[in-house]
């Protein structure tokens, strides 16, 4: 008997089936957002004699209920916050020769501003009615100021950018010796430690 050719399967409705699946996945899924600003909260315990921070080492950022910024007693736009935070952190006001002297700072060395990045503390004060959007925007700008300075120092000392290497290591695709790089990152973090303090917000509407 002659072999009969197998009849071809009609694949015309394949597209319909695939569309159906596609629409199902489109509807049921979201592209999960998994990036954000990481923070460490202070432990909830009473500190006996808290360290006294000098006025000049303190950078006070005040956000009121109308989302306006008051930085060091002056009204400021959000876009200027980053630069003024950089200026404050990078000031290095301690005199040359003293143990506080900061030899990597490139700021104005104004004795009225911070002694060195280790001493400098940024304090953010929010009103309870401040919008979360503004809160995050302020935090973002302050972290950006730190990242800028860390990038600059790691570029100078090791020839790479702090944020880029950190990102590559987070994603697990860093080429090269991870432990050595981790150590370098930590040494940069020590040069510009993240010192952000958050005051308890004031009562409603004040």
């Amino acid at each position, binding site marked *: 008997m002659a072999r009969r050719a197998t009849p071809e399967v009609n694949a015309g409705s394949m597209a319909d089936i695939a569309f159906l699946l596609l629409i199902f996945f489109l509807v049921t899924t979201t592209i999960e957002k998994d990036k954000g600003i990481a923070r460490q*909260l202070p432990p909830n315990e009473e500190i006996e004699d808290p360290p006294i921070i000098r006025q000049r080492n303190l950078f006070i950022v005040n956000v009121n209920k109308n989302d306006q910024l008051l930085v060091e007693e002056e009204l400021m736009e959000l876009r200027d916050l980053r630069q003024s935070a950089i200026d404050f952190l990078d000031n290095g006001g301690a005199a040359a020769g003293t143990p506080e002297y900061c030899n990597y700072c490139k700021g104005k060395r104004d004795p009225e501003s911070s002694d060195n990045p280790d001493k400098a503390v940024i304090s953010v004060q929010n009103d309870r009615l401040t919008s979360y959007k503004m809160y995050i925007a302020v935090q973002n700008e302050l972290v950006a100021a730190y990242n800028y300075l860390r990038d600059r120092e790691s570029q100078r000392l090791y020839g790479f950018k702090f944020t880029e290497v950190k990102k590559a290591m987070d994603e697990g695709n860093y080429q090269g010796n991870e432990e050595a790089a981790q150590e370098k990152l930590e040494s940069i973090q020590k040069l510009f430690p993240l010192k952000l303090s958050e005051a308890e917000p004031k009562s409603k509407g004040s």
Partner: protein
Amino acid sequence: MSKFTKKKGGELPAVNTASLPDIVFMLLFFFMVVTVLRDNDLLVKNTLPKADQVEKLKKDRSVYIFAGKPSARYQDKYGKEGKIQIGDKFTDVSNLKFALTEARQKLLPELQDKVMVALKVDEETNTGLVTDIKQELRDLNMLKLIYITSPGNEVDN
């Protein structure tokens, strides 16, 4: 002469759709790969604020807290005040500790000490609510937290 006579009818030839399934399948696979199934139903409005100085969240050791106004279809029932959602239900600030402990127990035992709290808060919420959450987290000694944001920058626009 007959070379130039019109073909009869002059209809447009049908577009060949043979490769359509391939294209659709390609799209399908893309969506299947980049997305994860939604694991909890959002009861609150959740437009995240923008930030660009971000770090990546480690998913296996995180507990999610959502906060914001109840979304439109729940507003009749729950009002328009900012609310906290953990898992699939609304939680009160006073009940937060219990809900968080419960959520933490769902993680792998070896990761429970390294727990990280992911805050997904709507951008219109008041900071006061977030502060209350943070105070509870300090009491619970869950000190690592991450404010989930969407990519972008508030200054640029």
